[in-house]
């Protein structure tokens, strides 16, 4: 017993020392959509400044919840909150980077970019009404692709997710049946399919399951070499998810600092616009001025130095004009 107490005291001592020399740590949590780029930025930022920015991808719903409860220094969400919601929870919001959500498929013999889908097909697949890959509604779009007569294994997100919010917003916009039955949100009541946790989980399940379809942030599709599909956009063109089509969608965006940049980028009218684009947002607690300054310092650094890294990971950096707007927004809110 005595020995135990001594051990306890010795350990307590060690911890108190270790504690004293702990360097600066910022905690963020939320969207999995930008996780690759945030963690890459944080990795570099740590090398430059020594500040550790711990970003955990737990889903946008989680980001909103945890910043609302003030358990983290910043939250991240792919779904912008409305000015009313922000006011109610005393939050600030700004976009950090843009990207696109892409449908990905694993069908034996079908390569990336081979399968063409329109909003009607995607919607009916996720409603559970289109059950087989060789259904006429898909076949007519893809006369040359050899589609198997096998059931479609639908994969979606199981957690509260901004990727889901962007995806369901897209579906609600183009498909009235979806809007009535399911609606849009960070997590919805899915009519069919299995749920993976995070973009990682969906990518993982889609990769492992034959004849499956899922939706992930484009960077995840690229890094995991998943086969993305082409989508028909509102202008009537089949477009491939890439920088150009994301930028085309972003070009139509008019972010308004007065509304805390609350804006969706789905179904953009651009001729070559990718229909499921979206920005991802950072949420700050209004009263936490100290930690906000440190978080903003990180994003200021990232805006100046992180564009190359973001592009490497297939995210669309914010245009310069928008970055200036955001910097002004920080100033206006006393950060």
């Amino acid at each position, binding site marked *: 017993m005595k020995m135990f107490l001594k051990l306890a005291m010795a350990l307590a001592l060690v911890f108190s020392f270790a504690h004293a020399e702990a360097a600066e740590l910022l905690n963020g949590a939320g969207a999995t959509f930008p996780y690759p780029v945030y963690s890459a930025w944080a990795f570099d930022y740590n090398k430059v400044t020594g500040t550790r920015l711990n970003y955990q991808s737990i889903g946008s*719903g*989680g980001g909103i*919840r945890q910043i609302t409860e003030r358990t983290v220094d910043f939250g991240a969400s792919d779904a912008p909150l409305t000015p009313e919601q922000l006011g109610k929870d005393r939050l600030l919001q700004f976009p950090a980077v843009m990207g696109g959500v892409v449908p990905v498929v694993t069908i034996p013999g079908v390569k990336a970019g081979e399968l063409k889908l329109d909003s009607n097909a995607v919607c009916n697949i996720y409603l559970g009404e289109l059950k087989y890959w060789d259904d006429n509604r898909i076949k007519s779009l893809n006369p040359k692709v050899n589609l198997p007569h*096998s059931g479609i294994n639908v994969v979606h997100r*199981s957690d*509260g997710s901004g990727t889901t919010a962007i995806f369901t917003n897209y579906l609600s916009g183009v498909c009235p049946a979806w809007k009535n039955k399911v609606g*849009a949100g960070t997590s919805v009541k899915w009519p069919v399919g*299995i749920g993976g946790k995070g973009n990682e989980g969906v990518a993982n399940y889609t990769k*492992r399951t034959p004849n499956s379809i899922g939706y992930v942030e484009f960077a995840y599709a690229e890094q995991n070499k998943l086969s993305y599909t082409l989508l028909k956009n509102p202008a009537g063109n089949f477009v491939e998810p890439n920088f150009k089509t994301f930028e085309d969608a972003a070009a139509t965006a008019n972010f308004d600092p007065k509304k805390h940049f609350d804006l969706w980028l789905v179904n953009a009218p651009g001729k070559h616009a990718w229909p499921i684009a979206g920005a991802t947002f950072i949420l700050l607690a209004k009263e936490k001025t100290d930690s906000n300054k440190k978080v903003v310092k990180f994003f200021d650094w990232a805006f100046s130095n992180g564009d190359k890294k973001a592009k490497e990971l297939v995210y669309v950096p914010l245009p310069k004009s928008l970055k200036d707007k955001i910097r002004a927004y920080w100033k206006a809110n006393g950060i």
Partner: protein
Amino acid sequence: MPRTAKKNPVDNIFSLVTAAASFSVIILIIGILYVLVSESSLAIGRFGIWKFLSSTDWDPVKESFGALTNVYGTAFTTLLSLVIAIPVAIGIAIFVTEISPNFLKGPIGAAIELLAAIPSIIYGMWGLFTLSPIMSNHIEPFLKKIFGSVPLVGILFQGTPMGIDILTASVILSIMIIPFTASISRDSFNLTPSVVKESAYAIGATKWEVVKNVVIPYSKLGVFGGIVLSLGRALGETMAVAFVLGNNHRITTSLFDAAATITVTLANEFAEADTDIYLSSLFYLALVLFVMSFITLAIAKFFLLRAEKKYSR
């Protein structure tokens, strides 16, 4: 309590400290119950008790929540895993107590105990990477081919075998609970007085008849307690099933469908619920699980105590 020792001030303090430490168990149980009830009060107020338990809704957009899909998933996977585990566990117990040569008893007993010591996350991960592909490529198509068109039983084997489904989760759960059931059954079997067994042998019974007609009836209380204990364990298992269940909030009948258990829903959604009613509903689910497993475990304990009493007589 020794009456011989005189009361001494240090002794008083020490006895109070130990009393406080042991009462911490009661305080914790009451504390957990209190916190879960107060955190879920919002959801209890909105959905009531019966409506929450009987509703299949789990709709964060319309903010309507019910526990039934989760309870159903929990019950389905748990019962299925028991169906798989019980025969195997009892077989193991019979082997170790009655058949095995002495030199094998030790190693097999040790192996079973090691199986129980492997952390559940390892089971889950192994399930995802190793078992799930085996299930989806070999076992499930095979089952579907055999049973898929049999009337009645067929509905259990519909759909695409994906390997991320109720069956895979139940198989992993069953591997996890086999050690518990087996070791409790073994201990109960061992308690059968050898006089009784020997007299059965004396009148010409075969080994199996002794097991079937003497050992099992004699130890059924203990075995039953062990089974209920395993049930309680399986109810609360999280990580072993989180990887392979697919988190699907619907009532399904096929073993090849994804489902959601209370534990998996909590693991996936708890830190991520964005609205108050959503979080409160999750606490409510935790409360339901706590009550469910508490009652199950209490029943198990009741039977095990009765068995203990019977044997010690």
